[in-house]
C-alpha cells in the first residue's frame, strides 16, 4: 500500500486538525518534510481529478476542507446545531432542576458554565427569565428536539439508576 494513501486515510479519519506528530507516529520512518511532500502530491492529484476538497495545514496539523467554490451549495444544506459535552451537562442540569441561576448550575457542575449557557441560548434550547439572579429555563424547542411532550416526561433520576448506577453497586450482574 502506498504511503501517500495511508497519509490520506489518516488525515481523512482524524477529527479536528490531525497533528503532524500523530501522523508520524502512525507512520514510522517518515520525516516531516516527506510528509509535507506527500500532502502536496495528494492536493495536486485532487486538483487534477477535480475533487471538491483539499488538505489544508492548520494548527500544527492537517485537515480536509471543501474548496471555496462549493460553499454556496453547502449553505443550502442546513448546518446542524452542535453542542459540546459541557453544554449538554448544563442543559441536563437546567432540564432537571427547573429554572435555576448560573450560580446553581456552576456549583452542580463544579465548573464555570458561561460559554455553555451562551451556546444553549444561541440554539434556543434555553431562555432567560429576568430577576435577581437571572434564571435559565428550557424552551419549547428543547422539548421538540428531545421528543418530549413536557418536562414531566423526563425519566426521573431513580429510573435512570437502572443503567447509570454507581459502578460499585453493579455487583450482581454477570454482564460486562
Amino acid at each position, binding site marked *: 500500500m502506498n504511503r501517500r494513501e495511508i497519509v490520506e486515510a489518516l488525515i*481523512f479519519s482524524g477529527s479536528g486538525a490531525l497533528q503532524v506528530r500523530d501522523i508520524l507516529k502512525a507512520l514510522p520512518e517518515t520525516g516531516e518534510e516527506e510528509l509535507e511532500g506527500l500532502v502536496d502530491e495528494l492536493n495536486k492529484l485532487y486538483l487534477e481529478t477535480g475533487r471538491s476538497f483539499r488538505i489544508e495545514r492548520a494548527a500544527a496539523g492537517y485537515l480536509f476542507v471543501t474548496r471555496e467554490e462549493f460553499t454556496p451549495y453547502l449553505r443550502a444544506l442546513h448546518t446542524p446545531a452542535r453542542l459540546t*459535552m459541557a453544554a449538554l451537562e448544563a442543559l*441536563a442540569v437546567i432540564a432537571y432542576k427547573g429554572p435555576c441561576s448560573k450560580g446553581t448550575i456552576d456549583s452542580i*457542575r463544579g465548573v464555570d458554565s458561561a460559554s455553555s449557557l451562551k451556546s444553549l441560548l444561541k440554539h434556543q434550547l434555553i431562555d432567560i427569565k429576568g430577576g435577581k439572579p437571572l434564571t435559565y429555563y428550557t424552551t419549547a424547542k428543547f422539548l421538540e428536539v428531545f*421528543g418530549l411532550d413536557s418536562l414531566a416526561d423526563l425519566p426521573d433520576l431513580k429510573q435512570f439508576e437502572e443503567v447509570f448506577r454507581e459502578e460499585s453497586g453493579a455487583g450482581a450482574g454477570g454482564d460486562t
Partner: protein
Amino acid sequence: MLPMVNDPGKAPFVLRLPAFEGPLDLLLYLIEKNRFTLENLEVCPIIEQYLRYVEQARSLDVSLAGEFLEMASYLIWLKSCLLLPSAKNEDGGEEINPARELKEMLQAYRAIRMASQDLNTRPMLYRDRFPKGLPQEERDVASLGIGALLEAISSIRARTRKHVLNVTFTRFNIALMIEKIQGLLKLKGRVSLLEVADARGRTELIGAFLAVLELSKRSLARIIQSRLFAMIYITGR
C-alpha cells in the same frame, strides 16, 4: 481480532464458566455438547449437568452471577414437575408444559444470539473502517435524545465526586478542618495527619495538611515529622 467471540471449545469446563454470557448460554452449550437439539431435547440429563456444573463452580469458589443460581432453582422446580405424574398429560395435551417453556426461552435466546453474531460479522464503523472525521468532537443537536442528558448527568456525577470534596476541603472548609483538628488535639494531645483526614482520600489529606499549616502559622499547633516522608504528627502548643 474479534474479542467478543465466545466459542465453547475443548478446554475444560471449569475454566470457561465465567466465559458464559449467562445461564441460557450455558444451557445451550450443554445441549450442543450432548448432541441434543431443542426438538429432541431430553430435559433431565441437561438439568443434572447444569446443576453439577453450578455446584462445581461454587465449590471451586468461582464467583457466579446470581442469574446462574436463579436458573438452578428454576430447573429444580422444572424437574420436580416432570417427575410428578400429575404434570404429565396422557393425551399429549399442551396446557401445562414447563419443559416447553424452557425450550421456547432457549429458542428465543438462541435466535438473538445468532442475530448478535450476525451483527458482529458485519463490517463495523470504528472497528473495521472509519468514517470521515469531524472538525470537532461535538454532538449534533438533531441526534440528541434523553440518553445524552442522562449521560451528561452521569458525567457530572463522576467528575464532582472529586471536585466537590476539593472545593469543600481546600477552599471553603479549611476553617471546619481547623476546628476538627483543635477538637482532636484537645481530646488526645497528639494526632497524625492521616487520622485528621479520616484516611478518606487525597483531597481530604490536602485539606487537612492546609489546615495544619494554618494552625502552625497561627502558632496554635506544632508539626512533627521525624524524617523525610515519615508520618506527620500534630501536637498542641
